[in-house]
């Protein structure tokens, strides 16, 4: 390598591409990983038994999608390995407005989900409730505030009572927050006239062999995370565009260097041929030289990229306030995840692309007449 300024500039651009591609992919992977982990911790645990009529996308099914907790599961519930949740529709009247919500009854002492349900274990006249920050913001209530809730029980009888907010929790999982109010399970069962009934039953650990019961179906991670997986896949396509742009930038730098290099080094090319190199050997020489840019860039990227990527994996990337209101679960900080596969695949892809891009302009050498090349008169 001539190690001229242009060479180093291109190597630097290429090394930036290496680091930014890995960092960017790491952020996306970290975000996806965090979304998956949070969804498991806050909502689906190790899987969920659904009542056979339960359909989370159809609120009209909630009237019928409940039933007694099957006796086959009782033992596991008592052991703390399963957590029944009752879900019902209701209307709240915060600040004189009317809003439809989901009431979700859960055992205040449960340890399966990350929901902070302990504040529900209190003896007050009103119905204790915990809500998420998004819900609190939407209904403009905070801890200690009251509101009226109206519901219709299993017999179709309407009733109403006051709810007191005993806790507001922050979560990255909007589907346990938006439009939902969490109550003690026994209170909701009483309100709905549904003793010992539930809509879903969440498992603590992943269940490899679900207990078979009539009227209840077990939904595993593959099923429950399918929406999230689909969202991640769509997001990955968007992320790939950034990947391609960065790769194109690096390719452009290498292509430009090679074209200029061949233009400026015609006499050298002619000399190589005069000394006995075949055109194929000269093409290989220039291609390898171009590919060496990629290897050098990978080494330089390692020098400053490893400390930077490590620091990012520890410090994380702070997301701007309000980002999680956009619909996708976003933590305050995203911790990038760099897998060995990510680093190796990125390095290989960049090196292969650089080699191909280095090769393309060298085909011009094959058309060179050595006598003209020696004089530097070809192009």
């Amino acid at each position, binding site marked *: 390598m*001539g190690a001229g300024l242009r060479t180093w500039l291109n190597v630097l651009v290429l090394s930036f591409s290496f680091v930014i591609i890995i960092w960017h992919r790491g952020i996306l992977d970290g975000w996806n990983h965090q979304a998956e982990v949070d969804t498991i911790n806050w909502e689906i645990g190790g899987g969920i038994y659904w009542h056979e009529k339960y359909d989370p996308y159809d609120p009209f099914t909630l009237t019928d999608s409940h039933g007694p907790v099957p006796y086959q599961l009782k033992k596991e519930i008592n052991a703390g390995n399963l957590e029944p949740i009752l879900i019902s529709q209701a209307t709240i009247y915060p600040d004189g407005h009317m809003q439809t919500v989901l009431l979700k009854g859960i055992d205040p002492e449960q340890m399966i989900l990350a929901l902070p349900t302990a504040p529900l274990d209190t003896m007050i006249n009103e119905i204790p409730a915990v809500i998420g920050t998004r819900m609190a913001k939407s209904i403009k209530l905070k801890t200690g505030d009251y509101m009226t809730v109206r519901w219709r029980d299993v017999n179709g009888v309407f009733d109403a009572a006051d709810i007191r907010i005993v806790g507001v929790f922050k979560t990255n999982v909007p589907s346990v927050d938006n439009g939902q109010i969490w109550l003690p399970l026994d209170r909701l069962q009483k309100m709905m006239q549904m003793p010992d009934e539930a809509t879903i039953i969440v498992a603590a650990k992943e269940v490899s062999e679900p207990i078979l019961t009539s009227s209840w179906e077990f939904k595993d991670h593959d099923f429950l995370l399918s929406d999230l997986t689909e969202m991640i896949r769509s997001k990955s396509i968007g992320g790939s565009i950034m990947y391609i742009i960065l790769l194109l930038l690096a390719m452009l730098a290498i292509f430009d260097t090679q074209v200029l290099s061949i233009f400026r080094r015609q006499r*050298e090319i002619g000399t190589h*041929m005069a000394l006995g190199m075949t055109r194929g050997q000269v093409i290989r020489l220039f291609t390898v030289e171009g590919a060496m840019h990629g290897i050098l860039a990978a080494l330089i990227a390692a020098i400053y990229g490893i400390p930077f990527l490590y620091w990012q994996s520890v410090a994380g990337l702070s997301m701007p306030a309000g980002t999680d209101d956009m619909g996708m679960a976003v933590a305050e900080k995203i911790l990038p995840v760099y897998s060995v596969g990510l680093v190796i695949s990125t390095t290989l892809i960049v090196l292969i692309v650089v080699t191909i891009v280095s090769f393309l302009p060298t085909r011009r050498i094959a058309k060179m007449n050595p*006598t003209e090349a020696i004089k530097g008169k070809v192009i």
Partner: protein
Amino acid sequence: MDNSNIIQIENMWKQFPMGGGKFTALENINLTFGKGEFAGLVGPSGSGKTTLLNIIGSLDVPTKGSTIILDKSISDLTHKEAAQLRNHHLGFIFQTYNLLPVYTVFENVEYPLLLLDYTSDERHKAVLDALEWVGLSDKEKSRPAQLSGGESQRVAIARAMVKRPEIVLADEPTANLDAENSHHILQMMEKLNKELETTFIFATHDEKVIKYIRRKISLLDGKIEKDEHLEMGDRRPETGDGRPETGGRA
């Protein structure tokens, strides 16, 4: 073909496309060169001497006629075979030296041997010998940019000679050198010609070179005007512009 001739050219023409027609650079050339010749293709610019040198060097092919170099017909060689012929049997010396700028003197001289797959020890010894021939043993670690014109041309000679080729082709080797360096370089090549029996063919219009060659082939407008073998008296000037009258001669 006469077996003592290592180069045999018969009825050879070279034409280049120009506009809608053709430009004839060489016309009906008939020449032979034997082993150990020290010959010059002499003529003004545009007379065809570099074109002829390029064809002898298998860098170009004739339009018609026959050019046999070391029993190989240049017209019939593939690119790869032509490269192999240059690699094994031919050495080139250029007017502008054409050294590879990022390599050291040692690496420049070593380069042709790398293409010939010499071992490291063989290369090392051959390069040191070649640098000793041209008196540059102390410059092996220098880069071309650190050398004078005379030194650069000596490196080019060492690079051409290191693999001990049968034929060395030198295109205006003294054009960029002053008189003293020119004489020094020519004496060196004359010495190598005699010691190693290498055939040297120059393309030149430099009077200094013409004083040294033993055979002068005059070209004009692509045709051979005269082919003469020179005697010592024809070749040596009475005054030498710094050239020792017999110095460096073997």
